[in-house]
């Protein structure tokens, strides 16, 4: 095996594991190509199985011949391993460092993982664009499914099939693609059944400094407007940033060329700024100083909550344009692969009740993130503890999940899923045995043959046991648009992710269990009452004596 050369010491006995809020475990540490395993070889004690790809960074400490490795994970957990023997400790540490930063995608664990469960429904086929389009077709005939990108040549980050206005032919699309950043010509993201308005997304227009225009682009987006109606373009950059983009070939839709569209600029931060924000936030959460002022200023200085607020505000704005103003919307920033997707996907959570179900949310992540070309591989390569210089890392998807959690918290009965679903997606986006979040685009996933060689996360989630675990016991289908409050006072720190390992959740978990138990028992009794009522009614009809008292 290729990994063998990276593992000098595959096994150490007498290793002590320290985990927050759990008793220490002594046992044997084993390194495999993809896992760090600690087993006490006793019944009833949990084994630790940690994916190397979940390890963000490690620290080594030595006291005499006893070495300690502090392992900091991408899911924000921190554990400590005490390893007897300096050489063993150094070997283990260097193996972990090497194995946790493998660059080659095809060496990743999903390619080696064989499911221990029966795949009932292959998640790779659960959310095909053609199926989503069938739903759209049942509502409107104004759109068509174009195969212009079937070999990924028009837009490398788009899927092979995209929905575009019916009257726009593939030739036009090719021209528009050359005018939009990354070839990302405007495509349909969401159709609002209630009033037929739509949300589209794209890359920025490449107007450059001399104000280049593209008639085809204008034609395409105008084709989505009803006669006499205006639309809104939501640019996720400030006007200044957008103007500056012209110098590098980017730009904005000018009023002169797009008279039927009103541009609104919103400031959503991206890339490095977000990554730094996450690092600061996690550092603040781990602060042990017991000082309230220090905690609150660190929380403030991290700016994380500000980002949450800005994203939610922009998503509400987009939803408002569609639902309240009855206008269509085009969303873009620069590439259209990060902030754009945050806005379009959150707007759908607000507007569309079907996105608030377990399966609907998968569909949303699949459509608006995976197929829409959010570069998961690059963005989630490192998390908050990494010491290496950040390259393309940014917690864009985590911020999206945080925003969903804020809405979930404000509308605790409107979501079919519970918080654990969001935490699960966070974990798997950063490290997973499943292939779902590998690669940066549909093109890369096709090239890696992920559907053939790896298991989809959805195959695992959409099983009875998992669904049950992820279901929100309070759920009551709510067909309404839900408008979250975005006042700073209404937004909370997502404890379930950021303080998950800093507090004991035992009591909270117990309370949750108890609530689930009560609700289930309630249902059970309700069924019993109903069946007794039916029996009684039946007896009454059968026994004429009972009818006339």
């Amino acid at each position, binding site marked *: 095996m290729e990994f063998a050369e990276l593992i000098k010491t595959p096994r150490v006995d007498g290793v002590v594991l320290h985990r927050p809020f759990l008793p220490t475990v002594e046992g044997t540490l084993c390194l495999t190509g993809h896992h760090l395993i600690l087993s006490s070889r006793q019944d009833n004690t949990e084994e630790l199985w940690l994916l190397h790809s979940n390890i963000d960074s490690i620290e080594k400490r030595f006291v005499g011949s006893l070495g300690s490795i502090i392992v900091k994970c991408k899911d924000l957990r921190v554990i400590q391993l005490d390893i007897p023997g300096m050489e063993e400790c150094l070997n283990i540490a260097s193996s972990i460092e090497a194995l946790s930063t493998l660059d080659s995608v095809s060496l990743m664990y999903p390619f080696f993982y064989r499911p221990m469960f029966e795949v009932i429904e292959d998640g790779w086929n659960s959310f095909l664009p053609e199926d989503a389009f069938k739903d759209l077709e049942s509502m409107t005939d104004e759109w068509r499914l174009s195969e212009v990108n079937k070999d990924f040549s028009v837009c490398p980050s788009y899927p092979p099939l995209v929905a575009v206005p019916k009257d726009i032919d593939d030739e036009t699309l090719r021209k528009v693609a050359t005018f939009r950043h990354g070839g990302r010509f405007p495509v349909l993201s969401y159709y609002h059944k209630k009033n037929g308005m739509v949300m589209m997304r794209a890359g920025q227009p490449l107007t450059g400094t001399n104000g280049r225009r593209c008639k085809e682009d204008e034609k395409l987006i105008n084709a989505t407007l009803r006669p006499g109606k205006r639309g809104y373009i939501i640019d996720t950059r400030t006007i200044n940033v957008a103007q500056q983009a012209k110098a590098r070939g980017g730009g904005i839709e000018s009023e002169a060329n797009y008279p039927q569209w009103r541009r609104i600029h919103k400031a959503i931060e991206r890339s490095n700024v977000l990554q730094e924000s996450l690092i600061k936030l996690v550092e603040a959460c781990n602060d042990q100083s*017991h000082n309230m002022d220090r905690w609150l200023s660190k929380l403030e200085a991290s700016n994380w909550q500000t980002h949450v607020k800005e994203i939610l505000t922009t998503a509400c704005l987009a939803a408002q344009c569609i639902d309240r103003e009855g206008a269509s919307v085009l969303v873009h920033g620069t590439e259209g692969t990060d902030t754009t997707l945050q806005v379009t996907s959150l707007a759908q959570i607000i507007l569309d009740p079907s996105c608030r179900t377990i399966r609907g949310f998968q569909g949303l992540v699949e459509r608006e993130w995976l197929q829409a070309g959010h570069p998961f591989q690059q963005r989630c390569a490192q998390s908050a503890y990494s010491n290496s210089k950040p390259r393309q890392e940014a917690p864009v998807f985590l911020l999206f999940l945080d925003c969903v959690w804020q809405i979930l918290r404000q509308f605790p009965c409107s979501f079919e899923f519970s918080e654990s679903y969001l935490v699960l997606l966070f974990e798997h986006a950063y490290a997973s045995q499943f292939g779902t979040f590998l690669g940066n685009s549909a093109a890369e996933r096709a090239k890696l043959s992920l559907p053939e060689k790896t298991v989809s996360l959805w195959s695992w989630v959409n099983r009875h046991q998992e669904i049950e675990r992820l279901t929100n016991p309070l759920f009551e289908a709510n067909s309404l648009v839900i408008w979250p409050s975005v006042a700073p006072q209404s937004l909370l720190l997502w404890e379930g992710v950021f303080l998950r390992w800093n507090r004991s959740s035992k009591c909270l978990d*117990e309370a949750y269990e108890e609530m689930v138990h009560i609700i289930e028992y309630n249902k059970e*009794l309700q069924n019993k009452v109903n069946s007794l009522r039916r029996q009684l009614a039946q007896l009454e009809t059968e026994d004429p004596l009972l009818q006339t008292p």
Partner: protein
Amino acid sequence: MCIMRQGHKEELMEFSEHIKTANVEDVVLHQPLHPPSRGTLCITGHHLLFSDREENSTRQILLLLRNIDAIEKSVENLLGYSSLFSKADYSKRISGSSGTITVKCKDLRVLQLDIPGMEQCLNIAHSIETLSCLNDVSEMYPFFYRPSDLSSQDQWGLSSSEKYYSEHKELHKRWRLSSVNRDYSVCPSYPPAVIVPKDIDDDTLKKVAKFRQSGRFPVLCYYHRKNGMVIMRGGQPLTGANRKRCREDELLLQAVIDSSDKGYIIDTRSSQQVQQARMTGGGFESKSSYSCWKRLHRQMEKGKALQESLIKLVEACGDESQNMDRWLSKLENSKWLSHVQTALSTAGLLAECVERDGHSVLVHGSEGTDCTLLVSTLAQLIMDPCCRTLEGFLALLEREWVQAGHPFQLRCAHSAYSHVRLQQESPVFLLLLDCVWQLWRQFPLALGFSEALLLRLATEAYFSNYGTFLCNNDQERCALGVKEKTYCLFHSLLKPTEKEHYTNPLYEPTDLAIWPSVHPQSLQLWRGFFLRWTPQTRHLEEAQEEIRNMVIEWGKVALS
């Protein structure tokens, strides 16, 4: 107007001099979470009543005037300045002058009343201003309130030192019930009966009382069944600048512990503060005179600092700037959460001394009527499962706050909106409830009562139909006949119909101590109280209501 019943008539007579305009039609009410509505405004001696005139709805809003913390009025005599307004505006408002009264309540709600007619508006404002801060306790609403479902024959209160003593037979060997204070002459802020060491006679107590601030000699407030250790509380010793001693005081404390053992004194002031206190006649227990006692200092804010913290916090919560940084820095500047943290960690320390280290503890600050009670109450909740039931908690509040002499009347005279110069106001009790809420949030199964109870208590302490939180101590309540002439809140909360609402459906008693995490990251703003009137809190309330209904339904089904 069914709520006022018989009391109504006498009220009108007594307060009529303050009410020039009792009724105004066509008033528009703006309140949080509701669309504006038009109706009739009515002022009585104790209430502001607004009844909705709109068809199909007979919404009434009845507000105790005592609930009103501050009002702001703005009146416009439009006729004089009519040229300043556009034509449309002018014709709309030609009917005359009008005014607006913004009513800011102690439960943190803000209402706005648009009143036609400048004079009416001024009259109403004047009535509210006068009637909302009447100083005479005997004129307050609890003396007029006659609920139909409580009989005045009911026993007043749930607990007392006598009851506590008789319930804890283990105490009887070394402790006794003293009635040295039966006429309140030894300590005006203590109840008539207190629990003291058996070997200490009443004469000694009288001497000790002279040595402790306000006569608050050390008394037992909690007996820890697991190891027989106790919590005592008192006022600061009056050692003064020349380090006065009091043999009887030393004797009393010595009698609490075995000669070989030691005890802790938790002083809720910093060691610097206690040195300064000597200059004004106060002081601390010196090592040389109290060799078996170890002093621990934990500085807790009280009085004005706490009141200002509340004002800043409420101001921050009402900030509409939509700016996250501003909100977080205002929250930090208010220091409220720091006070929560300090209170909980001091209580944790106290509980640790008793439960983990197995020592008895004496708690005091200066007067021993504020932070002292905050800490001793929280420590009991942490250690004693009996205090965590609905009845147990109310009994604890009665013993440790009402009877122990927390001056509710002074502390809760005004809340966060008042413009009146602060006197003795301080949200110590509110801080306690906030800390209890933090416990409740960290241990959702361990407490038998619901957040709704804490919310209810947070308002009842400031304004109430019941007499429980009237006056500053037992003596005052006795002098006014509060127990004979008013109704007891705690009994009302325990009525079967009410009780359901205040019970925690998830409650599962545990015998273990519940140690709260006091990491700043673990403490949260009590949104249910401080952001109660914002829309998002309402969704949460709906969800909680949903759970509650389900549980109640479940109970019914299970019974049938």
